């Protein structure tokens, strides 16, 4: 981006995401900011690391507006990298570490990244794929050997973090500039990049945490990845309030419970799958006393009532907040703990500084109990989809209820979620307007699954549908017919999927049929396939 004329100084105003860290580093020098296993960093230390790396990135040619991806299993390095990218004037693109090289390649190419910062395992995992990313110039990872490939060169991250220029890099951006792109799936095709401005992220940190009663010295456990909007929100809201973020990767519920106790965690955010794991019959959550755990928050998908009951039984003194939001508008509503019993299944009411419209098919406001599309208005409505003006116009439209003279001034977010409200204005999620699915908290487009299966070249028709699952939200089921009457083995299809897609996208079951059922107009009859999958006695998997 070409620079214009900017201010002399930020005059203590926090208008960029990195200012959250800078302000804390100045006012609370010795306060703990981040825990990653044995690594403990104060705000001042993290500020120094990100200044060093930010200056180094600028020195290596990262410019204002450049996209830089991060690909990490949870680590303090990722947090330092995110702030360093912002300080160099770039936008960070946090990539879900569960993705496989084909999806990562799509993301890196789609937003034309200049650089990738990763961990040694990530470098090894993605190395061959990098050749497919034309815009890529730099790959930074600890222990990287500094080799030059065709287009990109690798740089060892360790010395860049160990010493360098510790001065705060000059602010290059405004609050309306791009800070981050989060990739997420819609109802069709490959994932799209949701563009978040500095202002969007700061607003979400403020309004999303306003009711959580943060206290200085709070300790927050971070399990969800920063590539997930709520995971990123935990980072920015913790730093807004001067709390300490404790990073956690786990395989066993016991590891989480251990960390909750050992690190005296006050707040924990999760998705339904995590709560199901934590309340599983063998989980030590049931015997544990966790006096410090003041609140937990659920997001990503609706929490099944049975899991909610189990959580309340295991954590009688912990407040439970149910949140609802989507990446495109970052944070939207929450249900306070005291309403959980009175309004089971409710997603609550809008956050402060958020307004919700429910709009029916005629484009009019819904009456009580009438189902309509949820439309979100407020400062967290994102900038739209990177490089996709048409998709952006569909989802982000002028405010239908503003006076005509104002209508062009603002965009509101049409969520695609069907919602109704009760007499007191509390909202209830009913379903999706389109075919988008949620699997283990991740949005999955059925057509993306279908496209991967078509790539085998073995199939004439493919239909992917979602099957509701208590633990996972949805699992994927596929019906397919072979090309040219050839014989197709289910295990060879699953093998192909295993190499091309993350685990949450892989079909739980594939049925091979001679022909897929059609509608009168000759299209695949999805409703009939859904009915068939829901029939009692239908097996869930191929095993």
């Amino acid at each position, binding site marked *: 981006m070409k620079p214009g004329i900017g201010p002399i100084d930020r005059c203590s105003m926090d208008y960029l995401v990195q200012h959250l860290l800078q302000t804390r580093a100045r006012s609370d020098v010795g306060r703990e900011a981040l825990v990653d296993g044995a690594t403990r960093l104060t705000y001042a230390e993290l500020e120094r690391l990100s200044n060093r790396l930010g200056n180094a990135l600028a020195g290596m040619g990262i410019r204002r507006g450049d996209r830089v991806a991060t690909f990490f299993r949870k680590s303090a390095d990722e947090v330092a990298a995110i702030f360093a990218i912002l300080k160099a004037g770039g936008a960070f693109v946090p990539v879900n570490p569960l993705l496989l090289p084909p999806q990562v390649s799509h993301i890196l190419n789609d937003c034309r990244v200049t650089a990738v910062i990763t961990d040694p395992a990530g470098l090894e995992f993605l190395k061959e794929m990098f050749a497919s990313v034309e815009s890529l110039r730099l790959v930074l990872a600890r222990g990287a050997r500094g080799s030059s490939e065709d287009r990109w060169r690798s740089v060892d991250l360790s010395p860049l973090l160990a010493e360098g220029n510790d001065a705060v890099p000059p602010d290059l951006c405004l609050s309306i500039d791009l800070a981050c792109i989060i990739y997420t799936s819609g109802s069709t095709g490959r994932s799209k990049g949701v563009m978040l401005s500095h202002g969007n992220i700061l607003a979400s940190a403020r309004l999303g945490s306003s009711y959580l009663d943060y206290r200085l010295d709070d300790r927050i456990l971070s399990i969800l990845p920063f590539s997930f909007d709520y995971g990123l929100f935990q980072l920015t809201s913790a730093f807004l309030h001067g709390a300490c973020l404790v990073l956690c990767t786990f395989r066993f519920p016991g590891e989480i419970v251990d960390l909750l106790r050992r690190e005296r965690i006050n707040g924990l955010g999760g998705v339904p799958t995590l709560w199901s794991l934590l309340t599983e019959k063998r989980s*030590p959550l049931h015997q544990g006393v966790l006096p410090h755990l003041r609140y937990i928050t659920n997001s990503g998908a609706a929490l099944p009532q049975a899991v909610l009951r189990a959580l309340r039984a295991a954590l009688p003194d912990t407040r439970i907040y149910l949140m609802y939001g989507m990446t495109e508008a970052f944070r939207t509503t929450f249900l306070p703990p005291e309403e959980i019993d009175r309004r089971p299944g409710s997603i609550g009411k809008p956050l402060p500084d958020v307004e919700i419209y429910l709009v029916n098919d005629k484009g009019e406001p819904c009456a009580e109990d009438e189902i309509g599309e949820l439309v979100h208005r407020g400062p967290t409505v994102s900038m739209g989809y990177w490089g996709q003006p048409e998709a952006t116009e569909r989802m982000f439209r002028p405010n239908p209820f503003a006076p005509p003279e104002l209508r062009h001034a603002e965009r509101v977010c049409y969520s695609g979620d069907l919602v109704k409200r009760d007499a007191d204005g509390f909202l209830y999620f009913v379903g999706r307007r389109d075919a988008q699915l949620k699997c283990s908290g991740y949005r999955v487009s059925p057509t993306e699954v279908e496209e991967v299966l078509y790539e085998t070249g073995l199939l004439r028709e493919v239909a992917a549908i979602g099957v509701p699952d208590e633990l996972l939200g949805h699992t994927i089921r596929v019906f397919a017919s072979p090309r040219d009457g050839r014989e197709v083995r289910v295990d060879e299809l699953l093998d192909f999927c295993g190499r091309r897609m993350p685990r949450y996208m892989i079909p739980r079951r594939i049925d091979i049929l001679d022909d897929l059922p059609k509608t009168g107009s000759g299209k695949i009859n999805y409703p009939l396939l859904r009915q068939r999958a829901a029939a009692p006695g239908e097996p869930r998997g191929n095993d």
Partner: protein
Amino acid sequence: MSGADGFDATILAFLRDRFPFARQRSVTRNDSLLESGIVDSLGVLELVEFLERTFGISITEEDLVPKNFDSVGRMVDLVVQKRAGRGAAE
């Protein structure tokens, strides 16, 4: 073929069937599953249910530690030990 070899093959087949990374990296008996990220937290639960169902054992909270699940070999040891314990108790 000893009994434990049979367990090996059964567990390996399940892993290759359900875990994409296991296919991609042609996992063998002693490869680390947890550190390498082949098996994630949800995967552990699937493995636990599979082992209980297939080998008729009961896995407790104390068994749910990385050392019992980090490789196919470790899981075989757990199954053998559980089945022996059950035999002794009967």
